[in-house]
C-alpha cells in the first residue's frame, strides 16, 4: 500500500488583515504624544491560487503530501483621516506569493459516502515566500494549516500505470506568520481549492 499520487488544481486564497495604524508625527508637547497625520489599514485581498501536490500513501488511511501554491494577491491599504483633509484612498500593490508546504492527510473511511466519496482531514505547515511588486524585495514566513475535504474517485483499479483518478475538494484554515505584515501577529485566513488527482 505504497502509492504515489499527484494533484493539480486551483482555488481561492482568502484575504486577511495585515495590520496598520496611524502614521504619526511627534506632537509639540513635553510628553511623548503622537500627532496623527493619517490612518492606514492594510489587508491582503482574496486571490485565485493554483497548486500542484505530490502525495505518498503509507497506509490506506495516512498520506504525506507536499506541494506548492502560487497566487497573486493584492495588498490594499486604506488611507483615511488625513490631518489636512486629503480624500481617502486605497493604495494597492500586487504580490507574488508562493507557499511550499507539507501535510499529513488522514482518510476518514468510517465516514465514506457510497463507494467513491471519502472525506479526509489534513494538517501541516510550510514556507511562505512573497515577492513584492517589481520582484526586488522578498519576504519570508511560515504558514500552518488545518482542514479537510473530500476525495471522489472517478477511477480505481488494482493494477496498471494509472491506478486511480478523481476529484478533490479542500477547505483549509490557515495561519501565516512573518512574510508581509505591518503588525507582529499571526494572520488567519481561509483557503478553498479543488483539484484533479492521479494515483500511480
Amino acid at each position, binding site marked *: 500500500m505504497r502509492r504515489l499520487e499527484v494533484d493539480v488544481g486551483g482555488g481561492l486564497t482568502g484575504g486577511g488583515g495585515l495590520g496598520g495604524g496611524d*502614521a504619526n508625527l*511627534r506632537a*509639540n508637547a*513635553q510628553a511623548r504624544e503622537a*500627532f496623527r497625520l493619517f490612518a492606514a489599514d492594510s489587508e491582503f485581498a482574496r486571490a485565485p491560487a493554483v497548486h500542484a501536490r505530490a502525495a505518498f500513501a503509507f497506509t490506506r488511511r495516512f498520506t504525506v503530501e507536499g506541494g506548492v501554491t502560487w497566487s497573486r494577491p493584492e495588498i490594499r491599504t486604506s488611507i483615511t483621516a488625513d490631518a489636512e483633509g*486629503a480624500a481617502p484612498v*486605497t493604495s494597492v500593490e500586487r504580490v507574488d506569493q508562493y507557499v511550499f508546504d507539507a501535510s499529513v492527510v488522514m482518510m476518514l473511511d468510517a465516514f465514506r459516502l457510497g463507494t467513491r466519496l471519502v472525506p479526509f482531514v489534513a494538517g501541516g505547515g510550510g514556507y511562505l515566500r512573497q515577492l513584492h*511588486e517589481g520582484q526586488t524585495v522578498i519576504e519570508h514566513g511560515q504558514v500552518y494549516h488545518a482542514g479537510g475535504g473530500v476525495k471522489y474517485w472517478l477511477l480505481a483499479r488494482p493494477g496498471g500505470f494509472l491506478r486511480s483518478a478523481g476529484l478533490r475538494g479542500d477547505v483549509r484554515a490557515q495561519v501565516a506568520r512573518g512574510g*508581509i505584515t505591518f503588525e507582529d501577529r499571526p494572520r488567519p485566513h481561509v483557503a478553498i481549492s479543488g483539484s484533479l488527482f492521479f494515483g500511480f
Partner: protein
Amino acid sequence: MKAIALAAVVAVALAQPAQAYLHFTTTRGGESIVLKWQRTPVRWFARERGAPGVSASEFQAALARAFATWEAVPTASIAFQFVGFTGAEPFDDDGISVVGFQNQPGMDRVLGATGFLIDTVTGEIVEADIFFNSALPWSTAPAGDPAAFDLESVAVHEVGHLLGLGHSALGETEARADGGRRVLASGSVMFPIAFGRGVTHDRELQPDDVAGVSDLYPDGNFRRQTGVARGRVRRAGTGVEGAHVVAFHPETGRFVAGFTLNREGEFHIAGLAPGPHIIRVEPLDDADTESFFSRRTPVDISFQVTFHNRLFVAPAGGDGDSFTVTVTPK
C-alpha cells in the same frame, strides 16, 4: 536656522536644492554642486561665553552631545573634534568653526543660525559657524525646562545645517494670531520651526534626518541597504515644482521625504527601508517657502494633498519603479 515661528532659512544665498532632503548646494557653470565637508574630523570651537542659565561648559557639553548624535548615525560617515574654547565670534570668516551664543534681541523669532564659508569650485565646506540667540531663554536640563528652549535640541538642528542639510518639511503647523506659525507636530529634527519651550524631542534624530545625512555622507552599506523612490508630481499634464513628497513605511512607522526640484516635477527620495511605502504629496504650506527654497524658485502650493494610488516598493539598493502622482488644484 531654527526659528520660534517663521523665519527665513539661513543658507547664505546657497539654498538651491539639488535633490531630496534639501542638501545645500552652490551653482557653478549652471551645475549644482552639493555642499559638504570633504575633510574630517570637522574641528569645532566653543565660544567661551555662556548665556543666562547656561554656563560655557554646559554649552560645550550640550553641543558635544549634539555633534555625537549625528556622528552616531550608523549609515553615515562623519566625525567631529572639539578643539577648545575660543574668544572668536561665530560668523567671522576666520578659518575656524565656532559655535556660541550671541545676543540678538532684534531677531526675536530666531533661536539659532548656521553660516558657511565654502569653496565655490568644489563645494567643500571649509568653515561653518553656529550662533544661538542668547536674547531668548535656554536650558540644558536633562528633562527640559518648560520656561526655556532646549539647547541640545536646537543644537542638533543647527549641526544638521553645519553638515550641509537644509530644512525638512515633515511637520504640521497652524497660523498664529501674530502672523507667525506654531508647530503642531514634526517628523524631522530639520523641520524649520522649533518645538515649544521645554520640549526635548529633537535631541533624537528621526528617520528623515538619518536618510538625509546618510545620503550626503554615505557609509559602505547605506546604498546597498536602502532604496530610492523616483517619480514626478504632475497637475493637468505639467510638472509641479516645490511639492513635498512623503514616503511612509507602514511596517516601521518611518517617514522619509523629499521635494520636487524642477519644472518637470521630478523628485527622488533616498534612504528608504526596503518594502512598500505610502506616498503622500502635499503643498509646502506649513512654513514659509523661503525656509526651503530660494526666492527664485517658483514653488507651487495651489494643489490638494494627494495620496498615490499605488504602494511604492523600495528595493534593497537601487531605484524602485518610477511613478507619477497626479494632483488636483485646490
